[in-house]
């Protein structure tokens, strides 16, 4: 029953996708995280919810600082790619450490992002 309840909560923020009210959405996800945390077998889901909330916060900040509404609702990998493509390496690095992105994945993302941005020089150096 608990599983179901938290599941509904987890679903909710998705249903309200695209709504400008990110604040309540993050709160909902955090609530789901706590519900998941109440049982042992949902540790993974709880962690995922926690990361999801964190990601939304960071994306929000990024949108404010870059003044471009292109971050929210993209995945962690996408966020890193967008940052690199925009030349904002510091932000990309921050996301990387924040979510403990493995080097393997990091390098793939970097190569792809640099290629899309057409920064062949940077690709060469790297």
């Amino acid at each position: 029953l608990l599983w179901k309840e938290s599941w509904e909560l987890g679903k909710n923020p998705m249903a309200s996708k695209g709504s400008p009210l990110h604040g309540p959405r993050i709160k909902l996800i955090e609530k789901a995280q706590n519900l998941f945390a109440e049982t042992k077998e949902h540790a993974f889901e709880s962690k995922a919810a926690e990361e999801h909330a964190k990601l939304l916060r960071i994306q929000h900040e990024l949108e404010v600082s870059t003044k471009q509404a292109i971050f929210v609702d993209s995945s962690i990998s996408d966020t890193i790619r967008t940052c690199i493509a925009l030349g904002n390496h510091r932000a990309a690095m921050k996301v990387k450490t924040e979510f403990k992105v493995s080097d393997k994945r990091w390098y793939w993302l970097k190569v792809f992002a640099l290629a899309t941005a057409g920064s062949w020089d940077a690709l060469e150096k790297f």
Partner: protein
Amino acid sequence: MAQIPSLDNSSLNLKYVREQSQRELVNILKNIRGKKCLVIDPQLSGSLSLIVPTSTLKDNGVELRHLEAEIIQTDCTKVIYLVRSRFNLMRFICSNVHNDISKGIQREYYLYFVPRREVVCEKVLEEEKVHHLITIGEYPLYMVPLDEDVLSFELDFANKECQVDGDTSSLWHIAKGIHKLESLFGVIPNVRAKGKASVRVADILNHMQVEEPVNSPDIAVSEINTLILIDREIDMVTPMCSQLTYEGLLDEFLHVSSGSVELDASIMGGQQEGKKMKVPLNSSDKLFKEIRDLNFEVVVQVLRQKATSMKQDYTEMTTTNQTVSELKDFVKKLNSLPEMTRHINLAQHLSTFTSKQTFLARLDMEHTIVEAQSYDICFEYIEELIHKQEPLVSVLRMLILFSVTNSGLPKKHFDYLRRELLHSYGFEHIAMLHNLEKAGLLKKQESKSNWLTIKRALQLVEDTDTANPNDIAYVFSGYAPLSVRLVQNAVRSGWRPIEEILKLLPGPHSEVKRGGFSSSPSFDTLRGNSTALDRPTHGRRSIVLVVFVGGVTFAEISALRFLSAQEGMAYDPIIMTTKIVNGNTLAETYMEKWG
């Protein structure tokens, strides 16, 4: 080329099934006089196009529309809705009716549910206060003949509904379909089922027989000798592998839907760029019938051979004097030219996909996974797919294949890959992971995998010459589909000899002999016939109805056809399925879409 297959060569009179459905629809239309607007559920249009040609509808004074979110504009005073029982469709209907009311337009509304009405849907209409305005009926279209040996229920989500949502209404639907066939062709004496859903279907079928016995005394001996029911759940390995038959590849890359494929006209040698065209694919096309089940490598050779021989004929024709009969032969050959061009174009288009390095690497990896020898290589390959953010469906196919053959992944890897998936594709996919876990397609390893035992016992990995195959393994260039191996055994000797293996696979199995008439007391006098039912029908090839609950791939159908063409196999298969599927369409049903 007709979109509707001719069905003339069918071993079972499927034409009759189609005509019955056609008649029922035409009757509905005829009973509503005058000009009318037929608004159909877009999901049904494929099935309907296989039942009635559009011209027949037009002859009955029908204006054809699709039911969508937009309001339908029409001058007709009579509107007929033909829909499946879905909530969103009910909403569309309501908004249409409300729109008319607000504009003060009066119309007659008819609503036909396919295949049967459901109370919950009518409740929606009642809440919206339109129920009393609509005349409600049923159009009992349960199955559609896709070709001379394939019937489909066209239930897109049957597999997921059963595995995740616990919604088993599709099972009733399947049983009803089989029961309908029995009422036409007689009670099937031998029933063999494997899997939870299949056994349920067999049970429901028996109940139907008791409640509503097939009582056609003129059919003393059933035309169908054996019914084999197989759950898709038992073999999720096969659909996740890339099909390598011609028809299978067409489905993998271009997606065959209701017996035809839609693609750019330019590919087929058309003039206009960007225009879409439909190419029908069924056995009325003689060349397609010949090559559909072959391994694609061979198809290319066959086409080349045919083209060269035609060229030879042509040069002979221009150089030497011909008798009239020889001319006639030549012209006859020329008639097959459009078919030739069609398939050469298609094959050429396909080879642009199959020659890609990534595709070949993928095939290689699929075989490595099925062999189940080098766990680490497979793991790293999938990890890399995720890191590179390859299309999610293709990653899922690999993951499912990997998880199923290993009966789950070790906890560490399971959590790691799930986390990487969420990071790469977004957290919204957590619902999908949950679905897959619930269906047992991607899960934590709890016990040692018995895939190796199954693989060995049923000889699933077999080397076979694709050009001159001696085993069904040719359809996947070296892997024999588990599902078809089971059918092969079930036809040959029933379940008993392979009982040990069956126990390793999920779900129960059952084997029932039905006396046919014994269950209905009024036919007691005919009981003597029940022994005769066990014999294959008088010298004719017996018919085996193979039902795949949860979908079947073209490659598996090809394998079944191949088996029946082998020496000593005195049966013709009729394949029945909830839907023709492939790894992509199957995996997609598990990816939940948000409002």
